[in-house]
């Protein structure tokens, strides 16, 4: 009978620190655990007392990968609380910024972090000699995504131009036109990368566990920036009631809070979005999804990586359309260093945006001077931790006879498939007082 002892401390090629612990004696599973030992971040505590103008800049620092997503979610919460209007053009530009970030993050995960598993390497570096042409294409897509973020936000990470009420500086029509040409030029590259990944996708484990998928949904578009909270179990919840969906709770092995809705856990991210909004994918993205046999509702978490690839295609196509829209209507002039007139007032607001790893919530309460008195941020990865744990519990008994190395690899691949951003997710610190 098999004895198994897997202890991965920490899982590599993910953001942050997470440990996998598996103990089995004589074929009997004794313990499976997904541990989050990372230190808590305290962002919600230190935005207290800060004026509404600074919150997006501060909370964007929660994450170096999803800084645009955090800034936008924060702005939406602030704008909801203070009743600030944002023009249609600025919403489109924000969606464009979000696409830039989505592509940045997905290409990073699919190309540099997940791909090595599929070709049987330990990191992306050996791919430079084994698959140089393919890797160059991945890098060119990453570069394009960085540029889209820079054109819309002023720099590739930590946006500067996103402010309550709109933008402090707008991209010029010429910048947008150049961006559009580059996006159009990337379509053949996307196809080549997709067919390269397709050739390797048999290496993805065939594992399914029925779970709930939660994401934003919108009647007219594949929801990223706006929408209501949808579940594959059929509920639609307005964003203001997000707490009734997330139901955070605390577990001893994690500094990140766990969440659950209808079932014991749920999943957020590219696969959840695709499962909820498949029909609204762009035509090319749908083609790629069909190529991989990816259709709703897909319960294989490993397919999240493929869903991300599909979303990159969607983001490119939708960005081209958005730029066309913006340029057709003409960019509305605004003064140099535009700062909208805003009257601070007391209020509470919630923002929800689909960031690369899933649905992100920020909620702020402001006093009548526009200073934050209470903040709550629920990050996608902390919504996924529970699902990772339950996936492991269901997966390990099926693969127990494959030996420690193989079990370790399959579990690491599972964690990586969720593309976790662990540092962002840690909130909770367990303080015990001895008396």
């Amino acid at each position, binding site marked *: 009978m098999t004895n198994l002892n897997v202890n991965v401390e920490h899982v590599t090629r993910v953001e942050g620190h997470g440990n996998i612990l598996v103990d089995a004696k004589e074929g009997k599973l004794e313990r499976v655990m997904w541990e989050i030992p990372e230190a808590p971040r305290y962002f919600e505590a230190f935005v207290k007392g800060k004026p509404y103008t600074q919150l997006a800049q501060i909370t964007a620092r929660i994450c170096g990968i999803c800084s645009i997503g955090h800034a936008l979610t924060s702005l939406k919460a602030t704008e909801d609380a203070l009743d600030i209007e944002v023009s249609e053009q600025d919403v489109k530009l924000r969606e464009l910024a979000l696409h830039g970030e989505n592509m940045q993050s997905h290409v990073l995960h699919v190309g540099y972090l997940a791909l090595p598993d599929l070709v049987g390497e330990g990191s992306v570096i050996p791919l430079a000699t084994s698959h140089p042409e393919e890797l160059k294409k991945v890098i060119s897509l990453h570069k394009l995504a960085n540029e889209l973020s820079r054109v819309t936000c*002023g720099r590739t990470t930590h946006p*500067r131009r996103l402010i309550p009420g709109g933008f402090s500086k707008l991209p010029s029509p010429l910048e947008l036109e150049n961006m559009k040409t580059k996006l159009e030029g990337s379509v053949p590259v996307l196809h080549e990368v997709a067919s390269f990944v397709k050739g390797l996708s048999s290496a993805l484990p065939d594992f399914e566990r029925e779970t709930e998928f939660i994401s934003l949904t919108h009647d007219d578009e594949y929801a990223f920036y706006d929408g209501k909270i949808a579940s594959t179990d059929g509920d639609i919840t307005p964003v203001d009631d997000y707490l009734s969906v997330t139901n955070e709770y605390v577990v001893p092995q994690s500094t990140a809070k766990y969440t659950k809705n209808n079932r014991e856990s749920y999943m957020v991210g590219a696969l959840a979005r695709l499962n909820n909004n498949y029909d609204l994918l762009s035509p090319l993205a749908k083609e790629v999804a069909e190529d991989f046999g990816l259709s709703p509702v897909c319960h294989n978490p490993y397919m999240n990586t493929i869903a991300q690839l599909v979303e990159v295609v969607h983001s490119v196509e939708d960005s081209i359309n958005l730029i066309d829209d913006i340029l057709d209507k003409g960019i509305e002039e605004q003064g140099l*260093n535009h700062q909208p007139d805003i009257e601070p007032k007391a209020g509470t607001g919630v923002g929800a945006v689909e960031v690369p790893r899933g649905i992100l919530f920020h909620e702020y309460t402001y006093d009548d001077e526009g200073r934050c008195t209470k903040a709550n941020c629920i990050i996608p990865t902390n919504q996924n931790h529970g699902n990772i744990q339950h996936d492991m519990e269901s997966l390990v008994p099926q693969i127990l006879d494959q030996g420690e190395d193989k079990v370790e690899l399959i579990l690491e691949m599972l964690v990586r498939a969720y593309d976790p951003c662990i540092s962002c997710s840690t909130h909770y610190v367990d303080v015990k007082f001895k008396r």
Partner: protein
Amino acid sequence: MKITIDGKEFSCKPGQKVYDVAEENDIYIPTLCLNKLNHEERPAGCRICLVELVGQGNAEPKLESSCSLPVHDGMEISTKNKVVYDERREVLELLLSEHEQDCRNCGISGDCYFADLCFEYDIDGVSVCSECPNRKDGCFLARDILCLGPVTHAGCNAFCTRNGDPCESCFGVLSNKDVLVFGLEAFGENGFTRDQVLEAAKVFSYEEVRVLEELMDEYDLLNKEVSE
């Protein structure tokens, strides 16, 4: 004819100046007074292009301005060593001390080579205003938005103000008190009160806030009654 610059040998013609030989061979030497478009105009007055002429035989090394130093065969020049760096830095400090730092209203703010050099040579006393392209009416202070640029150490190339947001002083408060006074005066001239400035200064350390408060008291700046 051959000369050696920073250990590498280069051929040159009689009558050429060391600066020109260096420039031909992509060796960077800073200069403020030499006309980049017309090299005939070289007053040799700024002294920033100082290089070290390595002494031959028993001769002591000498500092010379490279734009006016004619080449001779076998000459040895060092453009990058501590003596040269320190001397250039001192020259820059002297120039800065005589320079009216009204960067907020200066026509070349945002594209100022002098400010870049001061930053390159780590001279404290150049504010973000020197790097900011929003001058006069475009200045945030003139539009009633409190921007910390005038009291903040340069070096970020005014990233935020270039992207339409006021400075939040990422690089910290200047330690050159003359320039700080200049910056605090700018706040006062634009109608900001002591309380408003101290509120914005919450991003600074306790030490930095104390320095600002002391300066306000010492020079009677941003006096609440006057500003209101």
